[in-house]
């Protein structure tokens, strides 16, 4: 295989360009993050992270990103299901619109969601009648993260739904299973890896998201301050070591998350494969 491929030209050039760009743009910068944090020593790192405001920011970021990803799991599945399975007017249009949160600059999403959910906004007014404030609370952060994360779940589930073998479903129905039983026993298992992937992508994006959140968050320390904002705040105070350590910690957390979910996914695949 490799013998046959080696007749093609340009290996050295293309690999050189790729490695150079990755080193200059990604590896060296991220290395700077690690060495700058290491300069502080374990004690310094611990001191920065154990700060109450930092812990609170991590708590806010985690809980809102988790809640948003969980809601997106259900809403994304419903949207993908309807787009793949049911007749719908202007389906093509709806399907291309799914990617809007990827294409819309986050600052625009931020200001428009804030305006909609502010206490006097189109939707915020309606929530206010029930005594619920959305904008400038963690609930508002969750709304922004739902907007940002929805396409991740829809786009990972959609292709799997399209490829599902209809015969198994028909067999299950003709053997007397109810719609719900068919859904739970036949349809859901193959979807689980895709759902987990969509969930983890939405969750990871939610942890790092900045532009769409800062307008709607209210940014009150201890209450509605997210980790990325705290990093920016530390930078603006010229507290570079503080910003660096928090950034490194959130990066490590995000990678551990992705690793865990990757492992989980392989495990589900194996399990459903065996059954």
């Amino acid at each position: 295989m490799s013998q046959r491929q080696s007749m093609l030209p340009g290996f050295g050039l293309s690999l050189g360009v790729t490695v150079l760009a990755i080193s200059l743009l990604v590896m060296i910068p991220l290395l700077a993050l690690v060495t700058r944090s290491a300069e502080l020593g374990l004690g310094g790192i611990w001191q920065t992270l154990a700060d109450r405001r930092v812990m609170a920011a991590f708590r806010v970021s985690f809980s809102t990103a988790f809640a948003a990803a969980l809601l997106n799991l259900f809403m994304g599945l419903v949207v993908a299901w309807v787009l793949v399975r049911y007749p719908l007017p202007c389906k093509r249009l709806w399907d291309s619109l799914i990617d809007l949160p990827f294409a819309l600059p986050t600052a625009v999403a931020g200001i428009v969601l804030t305006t909609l959910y502010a206490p006097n906004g189109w939707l915020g007014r309606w929530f206010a009648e029930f005594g619920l404030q959305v904008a400038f609370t963690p609930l508002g952060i969750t709304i922004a993260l739902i907007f940002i994360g929805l396409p991740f779940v829809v786009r990972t589930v959609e292709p799997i739904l399209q490829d599902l073998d209809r015969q198994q479903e028909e067999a299950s129905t003709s053997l007397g299973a109810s719609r719900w039983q068919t859904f739970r026993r036949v349809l859901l298992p193959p979807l689980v890896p895709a759902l987990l992937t969509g969930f983890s992508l939405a969750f990871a994006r939610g942890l790092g998201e900045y532009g769409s959140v800062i307008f709607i968050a209210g940014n009150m320390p201890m209450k509605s301050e997210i980790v990325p904002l705290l990093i920016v705040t530390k930078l603006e105070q010229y507290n570079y070591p503080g910003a660096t350590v928090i950034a490194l910690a959130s990066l490590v957390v995000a990678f551990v998350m992705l690793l865990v979910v990757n492992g989980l996914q392989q495990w589900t695949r194996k399990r459903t494969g065996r059954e």
Partner: protein
Amino acid sequence: MNTTISIASRPAPRHPDAGSVPWVRYGLSALALAILGLFLILPLVAVLAEAFREGWQAYLDAITDRYTRHAMLLTLITALICVPLNTLFGIAAAWCIARFQFPGRSLLTTLIDLPFSVSPVIAGLVFILIFGSQGWFGGWFTTHGFPVIFALPGIVLATLFVTLPFVARELIPLMQAQGAEQEEASIMLGASAWRMFWTITLPRIKWGLLYGVILCNARAMGEFGAVSVVSGHIRGATNTLPLHVEILYNEYQFSAAFAVATLLAGLAIVTLVLKSIIEWRQQRQWENASP
């Protein structure tokens, strides 16, 4: 291969679940439309409504304002530098990863995707650590009259970082699926590397390439977090369009902020339309290719 063909040739008008319980079907459809309406349509409508709240004249004033024009120019310049560079990077990365076997190949693929899982704020921060006033090389660049942070180079670097994966990740799976046979044939028949690229490789990847370029461009023009950290928000100097939206909004000039936001929302819509057209063309190509 199998899956792609089955997606492409899926019979569109026949709805297999049309026989299922009607209330489930209508209920779920209504729920899905409500979700899409609430989270996708309503924000778009609201951007327009807020932008024209004070009338056409105010809208025109806001988008032809001196600072807005400068922000537009800076956004265009940034995209004009970053998109071609990342396009070249994407082609190079896809060529070596999809066409050759070498140790560390999967690691390289992972590294290319890395910028997607890094918070944009961190993407900006790392360049401050290197080129900022307290950074590794910051002092040297500044004293030699070439400031990076709070200047165009910093904005370009941060944008390059966040848009790095777009072209590569479209091209790698595409070129892997296509295989190397045609390119090998052209080389065996004596074509030069250059000729092979222009007559075989490029025509076969052009739609995937365009797809990646469009997404890369949308992100380059719309990036907020990473650019915000390195730009310094100097009006008329280092202010890109998304940053200008933020400044106007924070100054309570809501209509003006939304007026500028319509430009970016328009960019997003154009991106989605082009993306759909390319997807549609690709699907047709698959259908024509499969008997």
